């Protein structure tokens, strides 16, 4: 049964060495309020599974917002398809990464977006692994079994079953049923299903029956813990116009470019 609790209470469930999964595609849909609580919890040697690792533009962290790169000092491994490289390098010194690498403390495992979703799905379904056609002949296949089936080459992808899923939803009811809004849905429903223990941050908690049974995306059985973001917090629904304004200023300062514009590598 889902419990309603605070972020601190929820984080007590996270331990050293855990595998954590979370969504990230900029601010929207990413559990920034829970990231901040995880930093405060101070656990270490975590493995993080995340579709993107995109640093926030300047000016956001100063206002109390948190992106997943903030977690890097607590990680021993990152499994991700996309690293906002320049932003990460500007946040942490090159010396910092050199030290991590020398100490063997930060392992990076690259994946394709679809394969990461499929590995989480496989974990959720209790599978031993799947043969995926994506990433053949690329860095993604390194160290993985290859197999040709009916003339097509595949890579063996192992399931991911995170110890803790950090999920961002729009609203929950008191039974833990979740709805999302727009493109903020992302990997959140997949992470909720794949994780052994699922913690959700929401703008609002409503009574059962308020969310239509046809609109519920994540049924409450997958949700262990619902955290309502306090009204005064920078992540609260009340303060979203302020965030939007800040984001707009950043975008205007850059011209036509977008929040995630600095994710583009090299030539592109």
């Amino acid at each position, binding site marked *: 049964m889902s419990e309603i609790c605070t972020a601190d209470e929820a984080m007590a469930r996270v331990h050293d060495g855990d595998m954590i999964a979370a969504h990230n*595609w900029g601010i929207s849909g990413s559990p920034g309020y829970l990231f901040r609580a995880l930093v405060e919890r101070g656990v270490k040697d975590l493995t993080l599974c995340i579709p993107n690792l995109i640093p926030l533009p300047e000016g956001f962290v100063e206002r109390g917002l948190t992106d997943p790169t903030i977690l890097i000092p607590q990680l021993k491994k990152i499994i991700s398809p996309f*690293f906002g*490289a320049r932003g990460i390098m500007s946040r942490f010194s090159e010396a910092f990464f050199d030290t991590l690498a020398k100490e063997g403390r930060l392992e990076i495992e690259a994946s394709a977006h679809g394969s990461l979703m499929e590995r989480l799905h496989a974990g959720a379904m209790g599978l031993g692994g799947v043969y995926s056609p994506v990433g053949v002949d690329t860095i993604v296949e390194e160290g993985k079994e290859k197999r040709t089936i009916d003339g097509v080459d595949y890579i063996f992808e192992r399931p991911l079953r995170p110890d803790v899923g950090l999920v961002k939803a729009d609203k929950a009811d008191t039974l833990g049923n979740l709805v999302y809004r727009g493109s903020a849905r992302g990997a959140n429903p997949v992470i909720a299903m794949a994780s052994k223990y699922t913690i959700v941050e929401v703008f609002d908690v409503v009574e059962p029956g308020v969310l239509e049974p046809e609109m519920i995306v994540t049924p409450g059985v997958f949700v262990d813990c619902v955290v309502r973001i306090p009204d005064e917090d920078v992540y609260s629904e009340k303060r979203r116009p302020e965030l939007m304004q800040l984001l707009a200023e950043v975008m205007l300062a850059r011209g036509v470019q977008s929040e995630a514009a600095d994710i583009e590598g090299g030539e592109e």
Partner: protein
Amino acid sequence: MKDRLTEELLAMRAAQEIRPGDYCNLGIGLPQLCASHVPAGAIVQSENGALGYGPLVGPDDVEKMDLDFIDAGGSFFTPAPGMAFFDMSTSFTMIRSGRLMSFLGGLQVSEKGDLAIHSLSDTDEFPQIGGSMDLAWGAKRLVILMTHNTSDGKSKVVKELTLPVSARKCVDLIITDLAVIEVTSGGLALMECTPGWTSEEIQEQTEAPLKVADDVKEMEF
């Protein structure tokens, strides 16, 4: 030196490949610019989980921006009747279904249609694969939009990739600021030249050999 296409003109030419009724994924970078030129009746997909949304919000329309309406590149889009949202597992099922055509950027394309897009080095600590490998594998038709040459003048249309491969034998069409090139089983076919450029001049800028199509023509916009 002769003029190459502006990014805007390149995007306009590329958007002509999309027909009413097509579903198309627009990747990060140059492909995003096509969003404003997609013909009526064509439907755009974004890998983070949206289908059928409206045009992007320009920098002058800040009040139209919605924090929860972002595309794969992080740009804000406007709503449109009939749009749908879904999770990333559904999105990549769509991407791998062969039902979408796909526009991606590129770092290099080989004459066999191999694509390099995610990294500049084999030892890159922070690769940027994203959805590119899935999109390249699953596309009904894969169109690469890129500058013809690197900033230091090297050809990005090559005999063999020198950068890390993202997917083999996946590219159908290359659109650059110099040319429209089709990848055929017999090699690369030069279909269109940027106005003011001859086939010979484009070949000079291109490492891979180009067969000039019988009906080669000047690009139109």
